[in-house]
């Protein structure tokens, strides 16, 4: 008796074929109550479906307001049967309800890690063959049946099934129901307690509807659930109540957010989805000749890309697709056949244009929209609140800011922008330092809000539902996938700027792990500057510099041990790469001015100089760095120079040494007479042939000096005749004309108001 009043429509989630049959079935049934598999938590926002600004694809987001990371998305496309059912019920003002187990019961005991699976269950469409058989049958039972019938796509099979029957009515669903009943008896029963609870809850709602005396109850649910919801096969009320008893409950809220076909599609990180949303939309929109319609769109797309495609191509491609389908014993060409035909005819066998077809016509680029007055998703709401709190409104035009990081408000604004950047929402970009303002506490930003950021925020929602939490989540995600140490340290730099203490903690651990197993000194060196910067700015930004210093300690130790080994037997190119890293790491380490680092660092540099096997370029550089930091006395440096330039040394090695030693430091040569005489003596001692040989190298070195330095050096050579007897600072101080100098003294004394000097 109850069976006559309850009509179960087992559908395929996001299936246009299902959607069409369902619409016909609902029309002919004219139910007085519509029950849909979906979260009852969303009831308050359901009415907005009929809002004229509501454009699928959209998603329902159900989340816990106290802990917004715990959330589930329920995407809908225009062709989703649930969407059609909702619209049908709401527009006719028939009581329409979601009857699935409320998320307020499901979001309770789950760990945040299970979020993904949570989303999966509401998206049961992926015909992914890798999944276990039983799992597959639950996710896409129709796909499984379609495959058994020799179809590549459950949708086409469904269409064929529906269209081959004249009566587009309820008996299709009866057939599905029977098939599912058979399938469920064949397969072992599900041992997932959540699954049982969901079905028990749906049954209890159907019972309630029966009790309310509705006469024609339409139940729309995933085909898999259909057999379990038939009243005559219901288990006892007590049994269902037992399953549902004692479930804790939390408060949940629901919101709509715009969705994209890309996110709806399979490969976007939300677990299961629809493989080809744009293709499904076409199936939904065109009842007939889908293949022709699709091929016409392919041709238009190709013409847009300036690839010749005539109507004849379209005709031939459709014919080929039809022949292929016939060869494969399929009644109509599916996406597979059309794809192959397009490749053979429209693209002339070239696979490259197929990527465009895939992006535009298979997956699609459609972006949904929600009414302006709709409640916002938590991440958006959090951002809006932050913007309000910081008096930092989102504006469409370009705006420049100069933040003084000593002010808490500016500091927080900067952190907000950095966090958004981490979330791939590039609202602000750091602008180059403008003139005038100096000091590390200034930060320059340029902001411009773009509407697409709304979608990016939704995308970022999967990392967390507040800006800070999401930024942290994304950091952790990036850290997990980072390939090199340098990537990690750069990320750490960002995380510090964005003030994400937990993110910094993970990154620290990750960097520690990575550095411990990494023996590439070059990579370790590359990591130093970012870390040092982080440690230095830490104080201004109130981040934990101690933590970073701890990592740097470990790094410096490893570098100090590995550096001498890493600098030997290098090719000239690798030596140049190493030189660059040395030059970057050295000032970074010096800026930290921690004596223990510097000691280890300089010891390593000394070892570099002393080892014969070190590449001469790096040897020279290390000598220079030590000399500039005054870690060695001048006599020692002079000895090194002499040693490197001794006649027995190969000329090319000597020139490389000089290059490493002198590049960028002409001043040193100008003021240190001893050095000057050694270098100058070496150059003068070269034979004519050897001089020509080394000239390019020397020129390269000297060209790095400032023009003034070069001029002075030139003068020095002229006056000193190029030999060891160059003029020195001492001698110049002696050659004063004392008499002439004395004449000025009285005048100076007068100016200073000093009694005249005797």
């Amino acid at each position, binding site marked *: 008796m109850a069976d006559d009043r309850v009509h179960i429509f087992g559908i395929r989630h996001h299936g246009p074929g299902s959607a069409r049959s369902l619409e016909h079935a609902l029309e002919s049934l004219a139910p007085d109550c519509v029950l849909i598999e979906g979260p009852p938590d969303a009831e308050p926002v359901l009415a907005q479906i009929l809002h004229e600004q509501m454009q699928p694809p959209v998603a329902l987001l159900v989340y816990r307001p106290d802990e917004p990371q715990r959330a589930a998305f329920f995407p809908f496309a225009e062709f989703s049967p649930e969407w059609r059912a909702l619209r049908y019920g709401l527009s006719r003002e028939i009581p329409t309800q979601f009857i699935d187990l409320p998320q307020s019961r499901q979001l309770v005991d789950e760990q945040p890690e299970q979020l993904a699976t949570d989303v999966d269950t509401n998206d049961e469409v992926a015909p992914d063959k890798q999944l276990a058989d039983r799992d597959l049958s639950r996710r896409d039972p129709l796909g499984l049946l379609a495959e058994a019938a020799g179809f590549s796509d459950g949708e086409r099979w469904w269409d064929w099934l529906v269209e081959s029957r004249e009566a587009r009515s309820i008996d299709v669903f009866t057939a599905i129901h029977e098939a599912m009943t058979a399938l469920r008896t064949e397969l072992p029963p599900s041992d997932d307690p959540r699954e049982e609870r969901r079905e028990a809850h749906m049954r209890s709602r159907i019972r309630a509807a029966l009790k309310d005396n509705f006469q024609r109850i339409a139940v729309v649910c995933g085909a898999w659930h259909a057999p379990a919801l038939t009243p005559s096969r219901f288990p006892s009320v007590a049994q269902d109540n037992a399953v549902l008893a004692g479930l804790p409950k939390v408060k949940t809220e629901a919101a709509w957010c715009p969705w994209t076909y890309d996110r709806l599609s399979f490969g976007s990180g939300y677990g299961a989805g629809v493989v080809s949303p744009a293709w499904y939309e076409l199936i939904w929109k065109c009842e007939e000749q889908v293949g022709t319609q699709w091929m016409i769109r392919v041709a238009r797309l190709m013409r847009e890309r300036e690839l*010749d495609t*005539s109507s*004849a*191509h379209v005709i*031939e491609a459709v*014919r*080929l697709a039809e*022949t*292929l389908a*016939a*060869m*494969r014993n399929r009644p109509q060409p599916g996406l597979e056949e059309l794809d*192959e*035909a397009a490749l*053979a*005819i429209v693209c*002339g*066998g*070239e*696979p490259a244009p197929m990527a465009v077809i895939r992006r535009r016509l298979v997956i699609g680029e459609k972006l949904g929209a929600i009414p302006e007055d709709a409640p916002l998703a938590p991440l958006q709401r959090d951002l809006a609140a932050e913007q309000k709190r910081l008096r930092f409104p989102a504006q469409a035009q370009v705006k420049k800011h100069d933040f003084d990081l000593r002010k808490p408000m500016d500091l927080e604004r900067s952190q907000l922008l950095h966090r958004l950047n981490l979330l791939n929402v590039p609202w602000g970009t750091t602008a180059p330092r403008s003139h005038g303002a100096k000091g590390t506490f200034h930060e320059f930003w340029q902001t411009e809000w773009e509407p697409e950021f709304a979608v990016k925020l939704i995308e970022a929602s999967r990392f967390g539902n507040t800006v800070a939490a999401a930024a942290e989540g994304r950091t952790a995600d990036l850290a997990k996938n980072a390939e090199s140490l340098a990537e990690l340290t750069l990320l750490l730099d960002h995380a510090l700027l964005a003030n994400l203490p937990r993110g910094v903690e993970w990154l620290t651990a990750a960097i520690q792990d990575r550095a411990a197993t990494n023996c590439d000194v070059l990579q370790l060196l590359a990591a130093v500057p970012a870390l040092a910067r982080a440690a230095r700015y830490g104080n201004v930004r109130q981040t934990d510099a101690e933590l970073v210093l701890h990592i740097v300690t470990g790094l410096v130790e490893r570098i100090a041990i590995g550096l001498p080994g890493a600098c030997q037997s290098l090719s000239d190119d690798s030596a140049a790469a190493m030189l660059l890293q040395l030059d970057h790491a050295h000032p970074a380490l010096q800026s930290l001015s921690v004596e223990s680092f510097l000691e280890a660092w300089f010891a390593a540099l000394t070892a570099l100089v002393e080892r014969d096997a070190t590449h001469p370029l790096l040897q020279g550089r290390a000598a220079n760095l030590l000399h500039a930091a005054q870690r060695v006395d001048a006599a020692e440096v002079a000895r090194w120079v002499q040693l490197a330039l001794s006649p027995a040394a190969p000329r090319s090695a000597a020139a490389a040494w000089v290059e490493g030693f002198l590049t960028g430091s002409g001043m040193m040569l100008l003021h240190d007479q001893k050095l000057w005489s050694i270098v100058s003596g070496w150059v003068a001692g070269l034979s004519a042939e050897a001089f020509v040989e080394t000239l390019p190298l020397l020129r390269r070195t000297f060209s790095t000096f400032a023009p003034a330095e070069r001029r002075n050096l030139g003068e020095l050579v002229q006056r000193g005749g190029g030999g060891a007897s160059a003029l020195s600072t001492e001698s110049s101080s002696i050659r004063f004309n004392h008499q002439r100098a004395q004449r000025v003294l009285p005048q100076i004394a007068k100016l200073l108001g000093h009694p005249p000097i005797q």
Partner: protein
Amino acid sequence: MIPLSLNWSLIVKAKAAPAMEPTVTVQRQHAETQYAAELSALAEVDDRQRPPNWKLSPWAVATYLLGGKLDSGAVITPKYIGNRRLIEIAIATLATDRALLLLGVPGTAKTWVSEHLAAAICGDSTLLVQGTAGTAEEAIRYGWNYALLLAKGPSRDALVPSPVMRAMQQGQIARVEELTRIPADVQDTLITILSEKTLPIPELSEEAQAAKGFNVIATANNRDKGVNELSSALKRRFNTVVLPSPASVEEEATIVQQRVTALGRALELPGDVPAIDEIRRIVTIFRELREGKTEDGKTKLKSSSGTLSTAEVISVVTSGRTLAAHFGDGQLKAGDIASSLTGAIVKDPVQDALVWKEYLETVVKERADWKPLYRACRDTM
């Protein structure tokens, strides 16, 4: 006008030659002769709809090419090992009366596939035009028997039909090899034949109309130098199927082993077919040099100037096997393949020799069980 004397001599020669009986002495049999048993086994069980004038249904043609076991118990050997969809597209193309263009680098079984398609569809793979830079219009349309032409004037008797014209009249598949080598103006004679399915003979004010079942399979090399690109009018009349190099070592090794076995039987070579491991090693060398990196993707390599196709692997293995049988102990040893291997890889004496030497020193030498091969190859250099 071609000098008459030449034609006379041709005709005389043709008459003087004794009629060739199809005996076992032919060096290489046509596909339809060699696999006659398989074709008739397929025809027996094939109850699906056949396009007009086809000997088999598209399904049976696909089975003939890709291999399988029939309900009657007959086993069909696979002729093409690779992507099933490509073959399906090719057959579907021929069934839609569109012409088929098989593209690919040398040695990707283009000609092989075209021969077997023709053999399976119309039982005759001999209606062949070999495209060269010197292919003239007569080769595609028709020529004249000048003696008759002079004696009786233009008539059907004096007309010498090309393979394409014969295929049209009999409703069979014509094959055009190396289409892009044919000069562009000659290529374009195909346009009318393919779109209108007719061949006008203005000399007789007649035309030859294609019988049902006629179609053309053309092959072309898409990496050749000095080719004549197809005009877009002609291109539009072909469905293009690109045949790729084999996807994996396993697939390629299977292809090589199968072909070497078949060739050995046809050429009556003594000795055993080399073990699959030995073949896999040679295939690996070719693949690595072809792709410019080692199979594990860890080491980059220089690639040689040759195309290093599967066909060349087959010839290396076959010649190695022959060497082993005649001059060795019948077992394929490293020394037997070293010289032909080197010859196949080193096409440019300077550049390729460097590539090959580098490969030997950096890759072959490092692999534990490749030592004999390394030594043998070093000796040949």
